[in-house]
């Protein structure tokens, strides 16, 4: 039987997934199933009370380029996916109330409404800007380009 393991850091976060040649017993290595090994969501989840839990942000935008005229804007929509690898009857899914966004070092928290947190961005300064979520286990980021009007 293949030996699949999730490697945890000191905080209990999954920082690596591996297939080893033999069985290993270690506090920082948790045996996982083939399905978990192949899952994209296990990495960066947290191992708590025998289960892998966590929240993953999904960030979508209606466009990736805006005109840097101060009025054109991109609308971003963030949603949260529960990446817990256990069934809901054995572990209670965490409820996320809001998402914190960061842009150029400025952070703001937006409450989730109907499962989404929506923000918009406008710019008078041309350039590339990365908007990211910061308060989830698996955060997302998007590049927004503000194109010069001249």
């Amino acid at each position, binding site marked *: 039987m293949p030996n699949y393991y999730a490697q945890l850091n000191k905080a209990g976060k999954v920082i690596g997934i591996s297939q080893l040649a033999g069985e290993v017993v270690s506090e920082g290595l948790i045996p996982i199933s083939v399905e978990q090994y192949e899952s994209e969501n296990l990495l960066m989840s947290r191992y708590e009370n025998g289960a892998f839990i966590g929240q993953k942000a999904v960030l979508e935008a209606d466009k990736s380029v805006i005109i840097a005229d*101060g009025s054109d*804007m991109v*609308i971003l929509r963030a949603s949260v996916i529960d990446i817990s690898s256990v069934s809901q009857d054995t572990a209670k899914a965490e409820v996320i109330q809001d998402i914190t*966004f960061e842009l150029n070092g*400025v952070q*703001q928290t937006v409450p989730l409404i109907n499962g989404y947190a929506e*923000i918009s*961005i*406008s710019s008078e*300064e041309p350039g590339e800007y990365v908007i990211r979520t910061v308060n989830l286990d698996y955060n997302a980021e998007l590049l927004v380009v503000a194109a010069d009007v001249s």
Partner: protein
Amino acid sequence: MSLKKEAAGKPEPKRNHFHIPANPDRLKAKELQERHTKRLNNSKPVEMTNEIIYELLMDVLAKQEVLERKLDNMMSGKPAVTPQWISRDGL
């Protein structure tokens, strides 16, 4: 939501919004460059007055100030512009 439209008094639904203002240093550098281009395109003044010399010197110092600030920002890793947050709070 359009900030310009809102400023013009047209009510639109508010949302959580990041607005990135123009970098004042970029605008100042552009203004200095335009003035310099205008000088280059004009013929050489017949008479060199104190006012002309003063204006030239002030432009050189202003350009120096812009460049120094840009270097400081690059060294400190500070972003050139800080976004403004317009919240839906209070609706």
